[in-house]
């Protein structure tokens, strides 16, 4: 009777004669509901339920019993038996219980479907946002420009300069932006912006402002002479159309004339510019203008002679407002750290050491640095032909330097590797050979492994390696210069990002600059002597 009733109710009914067969049928067919007697030959109903629950936690189990002892009942409940039906069977009770279980089953399936749909929706959204973010990141990188990245720039009276930037957005789209462009007349225009506020609006303002500067510079040939005042007038007009009522833009414009040794600037709400003299003295030059907004007033411009300047640095407030360990902001110790750090990289090491990493905002720092600094110690490869032996030359340099200043073992190793790699790059011609030479390059390898590839070219014999130490900052700055003087020199260093051997050298130094159409390489390294790690 029960079977007839069940077959009317369900699409398919499987019948087992005992618990063992019931378990086997369950494994083979995975039914939606199990209706079982408790007392059966082989396995009891509770024992069968225990076996089912080992691999299935969801299927509804109904136990039919005339009597059941207390302990077995508790165990059945703990096993997750869903319902108990007294015997003899009452069809009305059975129908009600099945109706309940079928409703639960349908609900569970619907819930499962909804969860899957939600999961798929979340995955879709995640994919969409990832694509959006990646595109935004590419756009940001596309707008930010640095015409002089890793380039040596000749200034007046034989001076040499370089510009380094670090741009560390907190999010993919950030409120900081910059552009460094060479103008048609040889001067450089540097623009640094920090759109105040946060999120996409600030990011858009920074991107638009930077794009405006790029566009103007790209069309400067239409200008007879470049005039910073006029440029800023147009910039203010442009901002009037893009900024919101309560939006403000901290930014700075530097018009750098390296040939003339002068700099003209207009700063708007950026932290003060830090300027270090050749004698090591440091001064702060605060911006004379508040942040720009749609109602900005007349602009104050300032001029600075670069004749006695070793380097200068401008930055966004993500640097100065970073929280110090133990309270306060980095503004409080920036001057001290700048005074100690001759390079941007060394300042960043101190910044990382002293500030809370999880609270950092977007930050951009830009350093205009003189590279022909007065030497407190200088060194030149005694015999130019020695540069035909990269490892020996690098080792001699480090050895002589150690006699002058304390070097940590890491610094020794990094220097030997960097100089060795740079000299090997100078020797290798064509560049593909430099790549072979650079494979697995280590100081020991340099010393013990015979040089592979083609023999030194005639230009290699003309390579020169020299070094100097500048003591103007708190920590000494080592500059190593490698010049390929050969008359038919074919070696050509490119930027670290485009040159495999320089790509390996760059992380070992604070900065790498390439000049003289790729025939002159400068490596800069702050000698910490273990100072940073000792903090």
């Amino acid at each position, binding site marked *: 009777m029960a079977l007839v009733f069940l077959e009317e109710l369900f699409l398919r009914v499987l019948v087992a004669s005992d618990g063992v067969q019931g378990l086997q049928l369950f494994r083979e067919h995975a039914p939606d509901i199990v209706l079982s007697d408790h007392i059966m030959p082989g396995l009891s109903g509770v024992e069968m339920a225990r076996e089912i629950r080992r691999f299935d936690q969801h299927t509804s189990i109904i136990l039919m019993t005339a009597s059941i002892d207390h302990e077995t009942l508790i165990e059945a409940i703990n096993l997750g038996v869903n319902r108990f039906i007294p015997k003899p069977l009452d069809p009305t009770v059975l129908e009600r219980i099945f109706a309940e279980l079928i409703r639960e089953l349908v609900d569970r399936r619907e819930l499962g479907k909804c969860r899957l749909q939600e999961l798929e929706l979340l995955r879709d959204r995640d994919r969409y946002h990832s694509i959006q973010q990646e595109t935004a990141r590419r756009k940001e990188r596309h707008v930010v420009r640095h015409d002089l990245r890793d380039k040596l720039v000749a200034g007046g009276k034989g001076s040499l300069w370089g510009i380094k930037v670090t741009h560390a957005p907190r999010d993919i789209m950030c409120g900081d932006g910059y552009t460094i462009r060479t103008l048609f007349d040889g001067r450089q225009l540097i623009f640094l912006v920090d759109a105040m*506020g946060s999120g996409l609006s600030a990011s858009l303002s920074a991107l638009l402002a930077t794009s405006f500067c790029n566009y103007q510079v790209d069309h400067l040939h239409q200008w007879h002479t470049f005039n910073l005042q006029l440029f800023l007038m147009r910039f203010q007009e442009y901002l009037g159309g893009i900024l919101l009522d309560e939006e*403000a833009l901290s930014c700075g414009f530097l018009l750098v004339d390296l040939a003339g040794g002068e700099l003209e600037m207009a700063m708007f*709400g950026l932290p003060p510019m830090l300027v270090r003299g050749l004698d090591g003295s440091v001064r702060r030059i*605060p*911006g004379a203008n508040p*942040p720009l*907004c749609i109602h900005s007033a007349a602009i104050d411009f300032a001029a600075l002679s670069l004749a006695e300047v070793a380097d200068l640095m401008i930055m966004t407030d993500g640097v100065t407002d970073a929280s110090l360990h133990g309270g306060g*902001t980095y*503004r409080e110790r920036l001057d001290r750290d700048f005074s100690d750090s001759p390079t941007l990289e060394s300042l960043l090491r101190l910044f990382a050491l002293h500030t809370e990493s999880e609270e950092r905002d977007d930050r951009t720092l830009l350093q205009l640095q003189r590279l022909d600094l007065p030497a407190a110690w200088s060194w030149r490869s005694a015999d130019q032909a020695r540069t035909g032996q990269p490892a020996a030359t690098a080792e001699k340099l480090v050895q002589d330097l150690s006699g002058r200043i304390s070097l940590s073992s890491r610094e020794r190793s990094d220097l030997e590797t960097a100089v060795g790699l740079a000299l090997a790059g100078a020797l290798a011609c064509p560049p593909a050979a430099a790549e072979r030479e650079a494979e697995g390059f280590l100081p020991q390898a340099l010393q013990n492994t015979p040089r592979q590839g083609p023999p030194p070219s005639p230009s290699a014999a003309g390579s020169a390696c020299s070094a100097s130490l500048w003591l103007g900052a708190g920590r000494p700055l080592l500059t190593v210069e490698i010049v390929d003087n050969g008359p038919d020199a074919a070696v050509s260093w490119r930027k670290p990002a485009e040159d495999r051997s320089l790509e390996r050298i760059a992380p070992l130094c604070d900065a790498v600059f390439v000049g003289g159409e790729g025939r002159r390489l400068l490596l800069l390294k702050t000698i910490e002597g273990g100072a940073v790690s000792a903090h």
Partner: protein
Amino acid sequence: MHIEGKGSNQVMITGNVKSVDDSIKIKETINGVLARGNRSVDLHLVDSLSLTSTTIGYLMKLVNQDQVKLSVTVGDSRLYTLLEDLALLQKFNVRLLEP
């Protein structure tokens, strides 16, 4: 951060101004002062060492566009230095409370 209005146009802030919520509260409180017909706001930052850029932008709008006469009294010299760096001392009539 805790903010409260005092008198007709005084806004007193204690604690550090740092979060987006802080910026919203400051804006709402000052808007409340202005809604009562005041054309001047006297803002006291008792011990904050910073000010969010959103708040700075809002205060600049009050001064530049709405012609509100703003005066800011700060108790922490670090905030005074920040406003000095931003060239805002004159625009916001900033005064450092002597310890």
